[in-house]
């Protein structure tokens, strides 16, 4: 891909009149031609599992249809721990579930792959939706969300989201999370509200532009100080445990510090492992944290849970396109909400900056594909014109776009003088595991909550609804699990579901040596097989055994 030379583009930008963009006549055609979700050929059909026959991106299909790395022999001698509720994932959804389950009296373990808080949650900048404005209503929140999702969302879930949202904000405040005010003081003031792209009212509440950081540090502290929650860092989930009926009855974790497996027998398992960005679907850069490798999604699918909209991902329009070391980093929608324009290498605006995200993304990709992008040191993108915004609305940068300023400085740019270069980045998994209002799945004993679950955003998520989802549904899953958990672990736990899974893989002619979940991005230089081989002790892999059987 090539574009217009950066220096030339800068001159044209200065000469630009910033005239309003021409409206796009055929949005469908634009999406089909330029958006990876709609483009032909980037999807394959799943051959096994509950969603056999559904389409999903090739790289994700490979993970979803991977073989388990472990079998019974690996687990011999591993310590066994019992709990009522086991929560996997230390982002916002996992923490909300853990705190609520513990408050409801459940015995809780929270296990996470990196450290608690190392998550997509901590990175969220823009804010969280809740209809609190006088001109707004939970009905509007409901309808805006459904419409943004192209009418594909589960109405019950969306209604639950919109009607619980104000209470979830109260819950966060009670745990010590702050929000910005538009007027007045801490008592009696009015919350600052920003308008998300595609909404009919201003509904995004925020703290500066690091809302996720404020949320995560509060939740992390709450979990760490809660003596009822056992917190295990660096203990990724590597497989779920099943009983003979195929119910989920616990999980196999791998303790990265002690190099050993741990079996947790649990009456309820809540997966809150977040998104998939680090699979780099369609070779896109990503805004996601390092642990976003779809582990929970893969394991939920393997044990039998149904997924939905797994061909729908959100490409955030404004990822960093230059410099390379920050490629994919997110410039929050706050910049566009505040009024920043997007311009191509000819100095023209080419899309309504506040149109739905997939439309803005597709439009940027079109500019780049058709040679109107801007090229700098081999990287291609379009301009996000902050200097012009700052001239129009002096002080915006300092007051509303603090982390953008930080990001620009990281990139070696003075944002008040030089435009940022942006292109879409893989940002969010719209679909995921099918859940009900309490986060239960089609597999008894298994709950899912947060980004890995589906149904709330349909085929397109509005800004601010993900942070709302993780709190509302994290709490609901935690409460429901704590209430329905039994004190007694299932008598027979094992890897019963794997037999059927492997049979399916063989029958469909799928490779048995593609193991999953990935746990870490491919460039982490980590191989779980090597890790197991190196740690000594007895080790049998599935592949050699199969070879023996073939003999």
């Amino acid at each position, binding site marked *: 891909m090539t574009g217009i030379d950066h220096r030339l583009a800068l001159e044209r930008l200065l000469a630009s009149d910033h005239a309003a963009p021409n409206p796009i006549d055929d949005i469908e055609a634009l999406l089909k031609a330029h958006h990876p979700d709609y483009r032909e050929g980037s999807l394959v059909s799943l051959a096994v599992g509950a969603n056999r026959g559904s389409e999903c991106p090739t790289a994700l299909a490979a993970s979803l249809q991977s073989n388990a790395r472990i079998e019974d022999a690996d687990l011999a001698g591993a310590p066994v721990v019992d709990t009522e509720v086991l929560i996997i994932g230390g982002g916002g959804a996992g923490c909300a579930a853990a705190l609520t389950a513990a408050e409801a009296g459940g015995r809780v373990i929270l296990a996470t792959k*990196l*450290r608690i*808080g*190392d*998550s997509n949650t*901590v*990175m969220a900048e823009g804010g969280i939706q*809740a*209809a*609190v404005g*006088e001109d707004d*209503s*939970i*009905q509007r929140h*409901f309808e805006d969300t459904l*419409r943004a999702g192209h009418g594909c969302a589960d109405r*019950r879930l969306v*209604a639950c989201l*919109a*009607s619980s949202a*104000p209470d979830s*904000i*109260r819950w966060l*405040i*009670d*745990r*010590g999370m702050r*929000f910005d*005010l538009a007027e*007045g003081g*801490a*008592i*009696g*003031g*009015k*919350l600052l509200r920003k308008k998300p792209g595609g909404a*009919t009212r201003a509904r995004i509440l925020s703290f*500066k532009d*690091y809302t996720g*950081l404020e949320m995560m*540090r*509060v939740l*992390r*502290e*709450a979990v*760490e100080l809660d003596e009822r929650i056992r917190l295990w860092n660096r203990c990724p989930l590597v497989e779920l445990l099943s009983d003979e009926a195929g119910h989920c009855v616990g999980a196999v974790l791998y303790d*990265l510090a002690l190099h050993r497996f741990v079996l947790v027998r649990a009456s309820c398992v809540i997966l809150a492992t977040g998104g998939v960005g680090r699979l780099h679907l369609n070779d896109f850069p990503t805004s996601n*944290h*390092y642990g976003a490798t779809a582990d929970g999604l893969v394991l939920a699918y393997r044990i039998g849970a149904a997924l939905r909209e797994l061909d729908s991902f959100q490409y955030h329009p404004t990822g960093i396109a230059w410099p*390379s*070391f920050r490629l994919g*980093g*997110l410039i929050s929608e706050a910049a566009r909400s505040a009024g920043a324009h997007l311009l191509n290498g000819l100095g023209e605006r080419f899309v309504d900056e506040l149109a739905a995200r997939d439309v803005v993304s597709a439009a940027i990709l079109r500019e780049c594909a058709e040679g109107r992008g801007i090229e700098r040191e*081999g990287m291609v993108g379009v301009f996000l014109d902050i200097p012009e915004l700052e001239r129009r609305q002096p002080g915006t940068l300092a007051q509303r776009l603090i982390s953008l300023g*930080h990001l620009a400085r990281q990139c070696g740019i003075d944002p008040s003088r030089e435009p940022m270069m942006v292109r879409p980045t893989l940002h969010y998994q719209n679909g995921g595991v099918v859940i009900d209002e309490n986060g239960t799945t089609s597999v008894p004993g298994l709950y899912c909550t947060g980004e890995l679950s589906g149904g709330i955003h349909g085929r397109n998520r509005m800004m601010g609804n993900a942070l709302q989802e993780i709190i509302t549904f994290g709490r609901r899953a935690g409460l429901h699990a704590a209430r329905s958990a039994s004190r007694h672990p299932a008598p027979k736990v094992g890897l019963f579901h794997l037999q059927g899974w492997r049979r399916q893989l063989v029958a469909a002619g799928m490779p048995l040596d593609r193991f999953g979940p990935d*746990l*870490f991005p491919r460039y*982490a*230089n*980590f191989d779980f097989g090597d890790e197991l081989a190196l740690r000594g002790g007895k080790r049998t892999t599935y592949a050699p055994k199969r070879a023996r059987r073939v003999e």
Partner: protein
Amino acid sequence: MQTSQVRITVNGCVIDTEPTRSILEAMIDAGETLIDGVGCMGQGVCGSCRVLVRRQGESEVLSALACETRACEGLQVAFLDHLPMHRHHVYAMDDWNGDSWRILERINATFPEAQHCRHCGGCDSACPKHLQVHKGVMLAAAGDLSAAECFDECIMCDLCTIACPELISPNHLGLYVRRLSTAIGFRPADLVLRLHQIERGEMVIDQDVASTQP
């Protein structure tokens, strides 16, 4: 375009890389296994990638974040593990309830070391976000809740906690003040009203609404 190479040392390994790369990227490029000490991978908000660095020709060792720090010739880097830490400042969210005139008493009881600050500035120089950590400690220890604002941008990397010779845990003190002052005293009127409307059943959702057009 030919980019120049620089040589850095990470945990004793010599790595050749380009000056546009962060320390984390340089490690990955060099084939090092990277499965901890990383989270947000560049945004600088999770506080996982803590390192000590020394630049060529300088004698001072500084703390930094490996995802934000670019490689430069002769840079020496050592990662800091997150050692499991016993949390000695334990409190409940209702710590200030009952008698909020006694907030200072509670601060002193929960973070007693804050009274012994040596004003050494160790926390300030350890902070990768250049926050006014010491000022925040001083304010909190004097019962001034505006201490909270000193920690607005704190990423909870715990570098100030490691640096503090009095074991004050400045960032946790800051968060304590933030959390409790919010929980006890943040009551936006619009939210209060909306919760009231929903709880009284005055605002409900009609799920069957046919049109979702604006």
